[in-house]
């Protein structure tokens, strides 16, 4: 089964990537990534640029809306995602708990919609 871990981070955490003291931020992520890869669970995923670099498109009642910035206007923003291949939700939750963002932001676990993917990609 495949799961996506959606990683939510605060503006401070996004800023931590660029600051000089980023070693503990990056170091934690590097180690987490390595542990995922070596456990065989890692399928894919990437960090995302800061939310203000996003552009959000909506079409409401036939009208296009283009919004600068992210879709949801909350403090924590989607900062990255990881796709994992694991036997169960329980295992995915375990990995989510180890994710550095679990202790400074939030990590949402969602199963990938395989059936939907099949319908889209044919």
């Amino acid at each position, binding site marked *: 089964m495949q799961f996506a871990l959606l990683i939510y981070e605060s503006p401070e955490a996004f800023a931590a990537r660029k600051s000089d003291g980023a070693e503990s931020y990056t170091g934690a992520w590097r*180690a987490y990534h390595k*542990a995922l890869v070596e456990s065989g669970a890692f399928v894919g995923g990437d960090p995302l640029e800061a939310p203000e670099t996003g552009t959000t498109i909506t079409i409401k009642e036939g009208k296009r809306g283009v919004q600068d910035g992210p879709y949801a206007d909350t403090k924590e923003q989607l900062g990255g995602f990881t796709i994992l291949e694991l036997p169960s939700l329980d295992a995915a939750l375990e990995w989510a708990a180890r994710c550095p963002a679990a202790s400074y932001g939030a990590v949402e676990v969602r199963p990938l919609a395989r059936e939907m993917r099949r319908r889209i990609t044919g």
Partner: protein
Amino acid sequence: MNGSDEEKVHRTVERVARESYGRLVAYLSVHTQDLAGAEDALSEALLKALTGWPRDGVPHNPEAWLLTTARHSLINFFRHQRVVLDSEPDLLLFTQHSVEATLETNFPDERLKLLFVCAHPAIDPAMHTPLMLQSVLGLDAVRIGGAFLVSPKTMGQRLVRAKTKIRDGGIRFEVPEPRQLPQRLEAVLEAIYAAFGIGWDDMAGADQRGRGLAEEAIWLARVLLELIPGEAEVQGLLALMLHCEARRAARRDRDGRYVPLSEQDPKLWSLSLIDEAERHLAKAFKYGCPGRFQLEAAIQSVHAERGRSGRIEWTAIVRFYEQLNRISPTIGRRTGYAAALAEANGAQEGLAVLDAIDQDAASAYQPYWAVRAHVLRLLGKGREAQHAYDRAIGLAEDPAVRDFLLQKRG
């Protein structure tokens, strides 16, 4: 009734619920085998207490009041069912017993049977601890789910399934025969220790995961000791948990940084808890059958001794681990053995033990990588140590531990 009186009633209900929940559930379910029914009846009674007591005053014997009220709703439920299901022989038995019980008010304590039911071999071992936390301590599925990293809804469903199996699967509420007792008791002790472990790991408490579970586990062990005195392993488990609990304040420095056991300041340890642990351990060893919990408590006792002597007797710890591994060599014990051996006989011997551990089992076991990193560093194998540190950091859940290891890795 004014606000502060109402608050007092609330606190009384809370206290009675806390102290009597398990006894009441155990008594209400022991004849019907219907745990869910007993819990529902009791929560109904608790709700009635919350609304009724502020108005009518707190009854003379709150526990007896709750029992009578819960029993009434259970009987009503059964009468209701009887129309559908015809007769229910247990009902008669149950009502008779209950009448006697409320007359005496001092109803029999059936919690021991309940503990054995929760850790019954027919129940999925993963559910032993959650069942105990719910039916003996009255914790809700939200809290239990949080502690076990399972969504509250899923945990709720699993608990319902387990209780249905107890009710419909013919699992008897009884204390096992002497022949089966050691094995069955071990399952109960394991379940209590699992609760403690969750409470113990959750030191950071960033998300309140499992906070207070360590205390609940110690309380359960005390109840168990009271119910079944003279069992060395029960006292061993209690000693083990008390030794760990004694160090709670020393596990983080003033800035919240992780402090490993060997670097903790013994002045921050609780002497009274250590003394209590030592008393239990001494009594346990008098029975002359050292089991896993006594041995693990003995290892903690050696660490506690540093408070007096200023040094750690690693060779004693190695010996206790050797005995433990003869009972059953879990990955945790073998890792602990490797760490102790590295201190007592040198890093090379520690590494050899680690190398012999199955790599699949070690893959996601954080302490293995932390110990391996430390041992490799001692041996001057810098690159391999870095790699092991990375694995340990990546598997760490506690941010304080993660930061500590990040510092060590450099």
